[in-house]
């Protein structure tokens, strides 16, 4: 997938000016609301006309000032924040809307496979007004995917959902796009969603692209300015009871958490602020997790220093202030002990 975008658009006091080439299969566009993300999506899809510029997808020109291909010819699907299903059609009618309009030789997505991936088989005959919020969004995903788009735009598709649904839908979005190998551009103001969905992230503010990096790099850059610090995402295995706590395998290490889970795999969030570093092994501490780590690198972000730690093959990011670095003599290659309370972890629902 090769998407070339040069766009200028001005309305009122807002001025959008972007020039970028996108080639990653999973691209994110990250920025606060009002930064021009949705306008960018509308212009790529052909729903809004740029004042000036160029849009090329896989070498084909979609817009160049004189040429403005209508949205129905672009074969670019959109999943919006709200499902916007057709209220007069059944679930099946909604799903087939795009498929029926796609030329037979361009159809690659199999209806039955998609229904299975999204687990919407039991909803097909129902009217869409009788579906729950999460079901509607799944149908909206299916409808967009069945139109066999060359590129799928996801415009804040999770922000209208509650936390539990959000992570469910993330799973569906990822598996659908992988199953049918559809490249996508994921738009969101949530850094966590970016890290779960995108490889390469365009950072957008005030109608300009102010940076491009991996989601991981972006999260590290924002460690110092973010109120919650850097959020470590820990992939944990199946838990077992350990007294009043629960023990989880984390790579080769073992962690004690206060929350249990009956899933085989889960992701736990851990803020860089909740990790305390010791130079030597402390005699006795109340925090239930004490991990011996090797310092891999240091990076500064704002007034904070991020410490990348290696812990039994896992990576952990902690944050400290400059004074602590000096006092503890934290340097790459050195050994430190990281203490984390069992209650500091937060399980991602899903």
């Amino acid at each position, binding site marked *: 997938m090769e998407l070339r975008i040069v766009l200028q658009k001005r309305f009122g006091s807002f001025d959008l000016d972007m020039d970028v080439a996108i080639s990653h299969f999973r691209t994110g566009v990250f920025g606060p609301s009002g930064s021009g993300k949705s306008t960018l999506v509308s212009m790529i*899809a*052909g*729903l809004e006309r740029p004042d000036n510029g160029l849009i090329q997808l896989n070498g084909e020109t979609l817009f160049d000032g004189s040429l403005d291909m209508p949205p129905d010819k672009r074969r670019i699907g959109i999943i919006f924040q709200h499902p916007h299903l057709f209220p007069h059609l059944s679930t099946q009618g909604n799903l087939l809307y795009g498929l029926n309009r796609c030329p037979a030789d361009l159809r690659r997505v199999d209806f039955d496979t998609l229904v299975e991936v999204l687990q919407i088989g039991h909803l097909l005959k129902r009217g869409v007004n009788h579906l729950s919020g999460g079901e509607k969004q799944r149908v909206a995903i299916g409808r967009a995917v069945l139109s066999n788009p060359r590129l799928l735009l996801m415009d804040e598709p999770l922000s209208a959902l509650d936390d539990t649904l959000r992570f469910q839908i993330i799973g569906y979005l990822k598996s659908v796009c992988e199953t049918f190998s559809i490249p996508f551009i994921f738009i969101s103001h949530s850094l966590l969603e970016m890290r779960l969905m995108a490889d390469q992230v365009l950072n957008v503010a005030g109608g300009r692209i102010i940076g491009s990096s991996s989601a991981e790099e972006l999260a590290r850059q924002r460690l110092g300015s973010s109120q919650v610090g850097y959020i470590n995402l820990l992939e944990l295995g199946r838990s077992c009871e350990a007294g009043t706590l629960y023990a989880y395998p984390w790579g080769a290490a073992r962690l004690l958490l206060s929350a249990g889970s009956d899933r085989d795999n889960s992701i736990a969030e851990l803020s860089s602020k909740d990790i305390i570093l010791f130079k030597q092994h402390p005699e006795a501490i109340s925090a239930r997790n004490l991990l011996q780590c090797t310092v891999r690198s240091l990076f500064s972000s704002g007034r904070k220093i991020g410490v990348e730690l290696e812990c039994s093959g896992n990576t952990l990011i902690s944050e400290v202030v400059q004074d602590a670095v000096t006092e503890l003599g934290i340097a790459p290659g050195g050994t430190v002990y990281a203490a984390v309370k069992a209650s500091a972890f937060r399980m991602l629902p899903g």
Partner: protein
Amino acid sequence: MPSFSSAEYAAILLSLKVASTATLVSLPFGFGAAYLMTYCRFRGKIALDVAVNLPLTLPPVVIGYLLLILLGQKGFIGRHLLEPLGIRLIFTWKAAVIATAVVGFPLLVRSIRIGMETIDPMIIKASRTLGAGWLDAMFSVIIPLSLRGVLAGSALMFARALGEFGATIIVAGNIPGVTQTIPLAIYDYASSPDGDAMAMLLCLVSVVISVLVLLFHEYLSRRMIRVD
């Protein structure tokens, strides 16, 4: 108890014929005008809005007179378009249809427009990104979702058409059996010495038809609210 003669039956049938023809003929134009005013941005939109709604506030007699001037033998359309084609409209039932259509048109457009404005614009955008051209989107999304507005508008216009008097009497005249609709027949009876009973009876017919149509309209509007 007086009973209807063939002239009264003719008046009732003619009223129904004129009203339904006027409504059917106006539908595509009404839909087009509502579509333009809801979905298109263009210069002169306000002028179109005013022109469409003007018959709502103009006295029907004025409309009738303007139509007479326009469509008559000396009128612009009458002389340059109708006469070469051998069409004579004035003082025929077709003139009654035209007069009725013009008078009822704003009601039709208003209802359709309200129906269209209740459609979430994002649904239309979604249909476009799913591969529907604008005409396709119109038939597969806009028409089905504004159908109740279209039906409600048609019912309203039909009811208004049944009562049309002022414009009709000027362009179509009051010829029994040819252009005499229910209101015109009532007008005749009311001005003749012993026509009271017949006038009353025709009024009753008029009330019954109007009530039925308005009930239908009310039913549609309620369903429209419930769905949205």
